[in-house]
């Protein structure tokens, strides 16, 4: 499930970028949960995803692709 994709830290990343990653991840997480609970309209959700620099179509495809293997960790 790609609805909540995380924040990535890599070597050489500066502090602002890391905090921005965290901000965006948290924003996505809140929006995803609101969407799952039916409190956020699908269009608004996709708009937020698009504003963060992702292609909604690609993510929808990813979500619809069945997850293989693994537990919850």
């Amino acid at each position, binding site marked *: 499930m790609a609805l909540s994709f*995380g924040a990535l830290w890599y070597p050489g990343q500066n502090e602002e970028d890391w905090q921005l990653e965290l901000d965006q991840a*948290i924003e996505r997480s809140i929006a995803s949960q609101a969407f799952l609970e039916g409190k956020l309209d699908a269009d608004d959700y996709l708009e937020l995803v698009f504003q963060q620099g992702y292609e909604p179509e690609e993510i929808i495809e990813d979500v619809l692709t069945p997850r293989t293997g693994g537990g919850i960790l």
Partner: protein
Amino acid sequence: MATPVWKLQRMLRDAQARETYLSTERPSKTTYDAQPRKKAVYTPLLLKVGAEYPKLLLSISEAALTFFGGATALGLSETPTDLADAVRAPRNFRPSKLMAMVGDGTPAPKKAYGGTGPRYIDYSGNTAGNAQAHFTAPISCGDQTPTYDQLRTKANAIRNAKLAALGSYGRLDLILEVANVSLV
């Protein structure tokens, strides 16, 4: 037309090789790599039962717990009362988790599929023996009412503590919780 000699020789060679292959045991690993896991209690960020945040029992890799600095750093509880009270996570619930890859300072090129595949560079670290380079552990807010800010503080603390250990090619990934769960 008679079968040429080279073809018969090749068939003989292949048949003998096949027989040798089938009559010998396949090599397999005789040792067992222990991957011990430990139970700990996770407090969810999004999942609520009524007004309460339920305590969820998760099974966590001991190596990852040690790497990230123990259960307290990850906001998990290991007290016997919590462990006794905790329940299993519902279906489709995915906890917030930290995923780390320890980088190797001098990455070496490798060939995939045991030497016959394409060349790639392995940046994952700890080349000494069978040392583990990838760690995954859930991260929660602990006892207090969970908020994103607390999770951020915890993630920041772990990142700062692990900067040196992750090395020049390491990665640290914070995946936030997905509670696509309907509780009746």
